[in-house]
């Protein structure tokens, strides 16, 4: 997996990738343990907020309002950021964003950058673009450092190395930092990372960050984190380059009052993030001398234009949906073939790809609704999943190929049956006849089916199916009516 990012354009389908992951018992144990711990912490700190549901609603309103006036707030952000001494760049897609950032790093005169954990840079696979240009990126977030040193891929939005346990991390550090005597307490690992990173913080003069929020009213950029490494990257370099999706904007400074309560509690089960950094432009006396913001679209305006998919952009990347999702908890993040995994990944990734790739992701959910229940800004993920499934069906059934689509043919046939009581009854009778050869009697004399053909075979891998009863409800009802009841 070394050096290979998660790319929806080349990733295997979710069911295929999931099958591989289900065989990795260590990974499943790690994911289960980590998500259990975070979920328990989240539940505790959410329960102590009597107004949690009102806060969620307020968060939803802020995000919805922003998306309805996104053009206005982006321009306001640009004007205020520029006034404060920042330089704003606009990138239409990942390619353009990469080109701008590589150019800015080169102009800073550095062939190294220190990075703050950022999903947007993962989304555009910035690290490999930097390396291709002869620039070495150093991840400074502890989890991202583990991923980078282990030549691994992130599997979770907030805790990218969630699939690794302490022993595995120790092995990576031992090998890559050349520390044969490294202990195995969390303190030992944190110390090793601190020693390793401190030298980078003091040496490297260019920093790259993402953003949790862009504040239109002030032109400020907000990053929240737990370790303080991000703040080092924001304050020590001479040049700071921030890349953010255009969906990251919020109208007013005061909106953070709501969002900075929702985010940490949902993400890590903390009441407040240990480090909340907000910087606005540059200041001659302190911090970076040059500050750039790259505002990236990368399919976000297409999502915005889709009335039903739009709410996807409300996401504040807390990953509570991932931790709560029974599908993610079984497979971990890599099965999603994208840096955005779990329920939010299942709706965001196909839309970022304009539905050309990742068509199996909208189906990577049992629609249990656990994601919607925990979402701090009330994104109705099941609703968007169903909407995207409809788009997939429309794409797959268009034209001649659609005529031969087995699933679509079966679905259409069933729909036709359900449109007429007569046909429905005939199908019920036919079903009883057709299943006949597959039915076997068990010890109690009940009929069961242990094997089904074709598409339905997945069912009988681990489950039996009881044979159809001799009499349907409606037959019973009619007989009863005929007998005078």
């Amino acid at each position: 997996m070394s050096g290979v990012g998660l790319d929806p354009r080349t990733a295997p389908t979710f069911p295929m990738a999931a099958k591989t992951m289900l065989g990795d018992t260590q990974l499943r144990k790690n994911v289960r343990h980590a998500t259990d711990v975070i979920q328990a912490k989240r539940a505790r700190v959410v329960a102590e907020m009597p107004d949690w549901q009102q806060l969620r609603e307020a968060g939803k309103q802020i995000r919805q309002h922003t998306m309805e006036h996104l053009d206005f707030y982006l321009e306001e952000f640009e004007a205020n950021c520029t006034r404060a001494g920042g330089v704003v760049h606009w990138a239409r897609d990942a390619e353009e964003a990469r080109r701008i950032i590589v150019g800015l790093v080169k102009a800073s005169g550095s062939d190294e950058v220190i990075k703050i954990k950022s999903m947007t840079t993962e989304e555009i696979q910035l690290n490999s673009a930097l390396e291709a240009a002869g620039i070495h990126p150093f991840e400074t977030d502890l989890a991202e450092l583990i991923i980078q040193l282990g030549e691994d891929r992130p599997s979770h939005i907030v805790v990218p190395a969630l699939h690794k346990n302490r022993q595995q991390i120790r092995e990576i550090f031992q090998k890559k930092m050349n520390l044969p005597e490294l202990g195995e307490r969390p303190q030992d690992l944190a110390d090793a990372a601190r020693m390793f990173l401190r030298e980078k913080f003091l040496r490297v003069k260019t920093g790259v960050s993402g953003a949790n929020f862009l504040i239109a009213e002030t032109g400020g950029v907000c990053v929240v984190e737990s370790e303080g490494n991000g703040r080092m990257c924001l304050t020590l370099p001479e040049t700071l380059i921030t890349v953010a999706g255009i969906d990251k904007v919020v109208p007013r400074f005061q909106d953070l009052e709501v969002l900075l309560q929702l985010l940490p509690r949902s993400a890590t089960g903390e009441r407040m993030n240990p480090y909340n950094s907000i910087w606005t432009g540059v200041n001659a006396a302190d911090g970076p001398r040059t500050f750039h913001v790259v505002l990236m679209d990368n399919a976000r305006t297409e999502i915005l234009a889709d009335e039903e998919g739009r709410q996807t952009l409300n996401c504040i990347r807390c990953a509570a949906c991932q931790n709560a999702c029974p599908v993610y908890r079984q497979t971990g993040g890599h099965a999603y073939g994208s840096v955005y995994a779990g329920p939010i990944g299942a709706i965001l990734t196909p839309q970022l790809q304009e539905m050309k790739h990742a068509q199996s992701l909208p189906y990577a959910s049992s629609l249990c609704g656990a994601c919607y229940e925990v979402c701090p800004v009330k994104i109705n993920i099941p609703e968007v999943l169903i909407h995207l499934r409809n788009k997939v069906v429309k794409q797959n059934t268009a034209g001649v190929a659609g005529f031969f689509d087995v699933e679509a043919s079966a679905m259409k046939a069933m729909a036709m049956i359900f449109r007429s009581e007569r046909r429905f009854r005939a199908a019920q009778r036919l079903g009883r006849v057709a299943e006949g050869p597959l039915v076997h009697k068990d010890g109690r004399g009940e009929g069961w089916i242990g094997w089904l053909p074709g598409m339905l075979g997945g069912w009988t891998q681990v489950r039996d199916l009881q044979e159809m009863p001799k009499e349907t409800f409606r037959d019973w009802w009619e007989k009863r009516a005929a007998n005078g009841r």
Partner: protein
Amino acid sequence: MRVSLFITCYNDTLFPETGKAVVRVLERLGHTVEFPTGQTCCGQMHYNTGYQAEAMPLLARFVDQFKGAEAVVVPSSSCVAMMRDHYPKMALALKDKELQRQVDELLPKVFEFSEFLTKRLGLEDVGAYYPHRVTYHASCHGLRNLVLGDGPMRLLKAVRGIDLVELQGLEQCCGFGGTFAVKNAEVSSAMLAEKTTAVLNTKAEACTACDNSCLMHIQGALHRQRTGVKTVHLAEILAGDQGVAL
């Protein structure tokens, strides 16, 4: 009260005992029961799998069969969730003003079976007797879409002779999810394995729920593993009035 039944295609074909049990409970409580025979399917499987266009005519069919009903009772939490969450949007998409009006008028009269008993009739004790050790699985749609809360549990607690044991992780999805169980068979199986382990840990004789789709899924694995543990719809427990054999 005059109660109209929507038994659902699934129960009608595969689980007729559930429908019979609903009739038994409602008649025992003194209500008049009707079954409009033109009913077929709510369209959930099509809608949730992405075949929205195929589900549309089933909405009109449902409305046509049940308009004018005093109350519609459905022994399936997922079918009721389909109606409440999607029917208004579907009617809007069809741009049919009359259908929209009919949907708006009809939906407040549609109840999931346990919901009808607890919320509409205000009952907990329906005079049932069921002398078995039972555990209850809260189906996702009942739990989150319909917010049934502890309604089904209160009904079960009032059953005479029952030995009710709590299911560990009862709010966890069993992994059925309609076509999910077929499209993502491996993940579905892994989720199911956790559910059946939890059921077996309770040492219950039967697992119950407000939805036969979850139960068919759970029962399929319990049978494959030769556990002898049964699944039974909540209505069938509430219909029991003398030592019913499992």
